[in-house]
């Protein structure tokens, strides 16, 4: 009788562990989780304190030190105008993480609000909103983001907006699907029987049950968002030189691939590991909270 099967995160008993104890339990669950937490912590730490320690080094050109290989003075070497690559990669971490956070924080609340609205009201509101999301799903996400970014004009801000615009429909769909199943759950009926209003039920029962799933999706999406921003910047649609954005840096390094391998390799590797870290984190959280969500939530996308 006690072994009630968890149908979704909503049904999963919330982990009693909280804060650091929760993190520790998550890390111990699988070595991939440990790896994910390690990578994400390092990147976050670098983004937070790195630029403070390295000061303005990221944008200080030194023409005496052009295209030097990795050394004790320049851990990742220098670029074509003698800037320290390590300082630039670290500065890039801050840009990437901030952009990803902005994208997810724009897309998730907006998408969830519309999704919950569609699922709760139903009828033509649902129909209109869902056809609107279909419109977005009709194009490959990256192509659509590129098109929007190009229309708005090349800049980091515009890229962030473009990617957020492409991401919100996923959250709308996710929230709506959760609301549709929650709506049929008996505790919602029980709340109605108690005289709760629809608004009260949405606030108390729907939002709180949708939240964990959305949080997982956000962590997985952070990786995708970083990749999208870098890719768009690489194409020249995003951050413009001399901004130390990873994609922008890699675009500048293309010409030096044969003479200075480190120029392209280090930003590329950092990007790869960061995205890997966030994707692993998303997958790990999803499996940890409820393995059955595998079909509901998507992993890496772009």
């Amino acid at each position: 009788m006690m072994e009630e099967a968890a149908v979704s995160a909503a049904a999963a008993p919330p982990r009693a562990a909280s804060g650091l104890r929760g993190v520790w339990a998550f890390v111990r669950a699988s070595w991939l989780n440990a790896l994910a937490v390690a990578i994400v912590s390092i990147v976050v730490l670098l983004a937070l304190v790195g630029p403070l320690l390295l000061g303005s080094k990221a944008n200080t050109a030194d023409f005496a030190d052009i295209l030097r290989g990795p050394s004790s003075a320049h851990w990742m070497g220098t670029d074509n105008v003698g800037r320290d690559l390590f300082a630039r990669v670290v500065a890039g971490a801050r840009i990437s993480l901030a952009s990803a956070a902005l994208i997810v924080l724009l897309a998730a609340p907006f998408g969830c609000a519309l999704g919950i609205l569609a699922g709760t009201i139903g009828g033509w509101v649902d129909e209109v909103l869902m056809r609107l999301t279909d419109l977005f799903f009709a194009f490959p996400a990256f192509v659509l983001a590129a098109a929007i970014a190009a229309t708005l004009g090349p800049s980091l801000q515009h890229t962030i907006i473009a990617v957020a615009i492409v991401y919100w429909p996923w959250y709308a769909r996710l929230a709506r699907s959760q609301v549709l199943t929650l709506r049929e759950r008996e505790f919602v009926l029980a709340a109605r029987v108690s005289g709760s209003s629809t608004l009260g039920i949405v606030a108390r029962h729907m939002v709180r049950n949708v939240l964990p799933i959305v949080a997982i999706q956000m962590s997985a999406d952070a990786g995708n968002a970083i990749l999208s921003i870098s890719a768009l910047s690489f194409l020249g649609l995003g951050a413009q030189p001399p901004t130390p954005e990873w994609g922008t840096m890699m675009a500048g390094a293309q010409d030096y691939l044969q003479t200075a391998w480190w120029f392209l390799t280090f930003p590329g590797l950092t990007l790869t590991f960061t995205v890997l870290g966030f994707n692993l984190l998303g997958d790990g959280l999803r499996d940890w909270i409820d393995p059955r969500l595998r079909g509901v939530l998507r992993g890496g996308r772009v």
Partner: protein
Amino acid sequence: MTGEPLLSVLDLVVRFDTPQGEVHAVNGVSLDVGAGETVGLVGESGSGKSVTSLAVMGLLPSPAGRVASGRILFDGKDVIGLPERDLRKLRGKDISMVFQDPMSSLNPVITIGEQVTEILRAHEQIGKADARTRAADLLRQVGIPNAEEQLDRFPHQFSGGMRQRVMIAMALALHPRLLIADEPTTALDVTIQAQVLELLVALTRDLGTALLLISHDLGIMARVAQRIAVMYAGFVMETASTTELFADPRHPYTVGLLNSVPAIDDRGKELRPIEGAPPDLEDAPVGCPFAPRCAWRVEACWTTMPPLQPVAGGRGGTGIDHAAACHNPVTAEEVRGAAPLRPGFVPAPPPSGATAAAASEEPL
């Protein structure tokens, strides 16, 4: 029962629109519950018990379910067609409900305390601290130890019986005048069932709350209900006081139900199940829905549903409030024999015009 009943369901007809067609869930149910009375609603799955109770709460699943006709009077006022705002004031405060499965009727991610206070805050302007004190009192009232601490726990930390106690505490929080309990003990362990039932009965008695108890368990009904209504395929077949119904059933379906319950002192006696299966509710009812399974059926049963009529108080003399919907009621001797004993009586064959489906449901 004297004066106006608290709840009066009159000729209630509920239909569901489904892609497969119209489902005839409730086909004209009449039912009274007096203030403070305990009424049992018995019937098998799909007989319309739960739908009737949801209709009373104004909570038929929309847009599929609708009250096609009939009236539901609560305290003399018709609740059908009341605006949602007024219904909401009624729910929880005047009419409350306990569901079958306490696992799913509590939200797994919200603390017990918050769920118990939810009903208080839906109806009263009440501060957080006050609501908490009240919630703890309520839990104590339903026999939950360390109530104060339990408020911060989650439903999965409670056993099934404890959860149902919480549900009862919530349902009775505002001292409603009517409590509808829909199979409140079915999902519980047998050892817990009696305790929870006793609690439910004791609390409703103390509060003067009328109880409409929905169950398929005649044993529970015998113990708790003052009056019983027997439902089948969306109709009320028979209604009587509990003692009267058990002593002097008139409807063949009631007789069949009573005969299919094992009794502890009847060991070795063969159980007699009711042959056949309930009708498909997608078909519009023609005649009595029990006719294809009934050994007492006469020709009229195939074509007209008899109204629920007062039973002539012959036997026992307590025919007050005893009504049955039957063309050919069962006699006292036949109840014991569980078969028509009149010489030369054969169940009427389906009329020639009847559907093949009806004919095939003939008892073997």
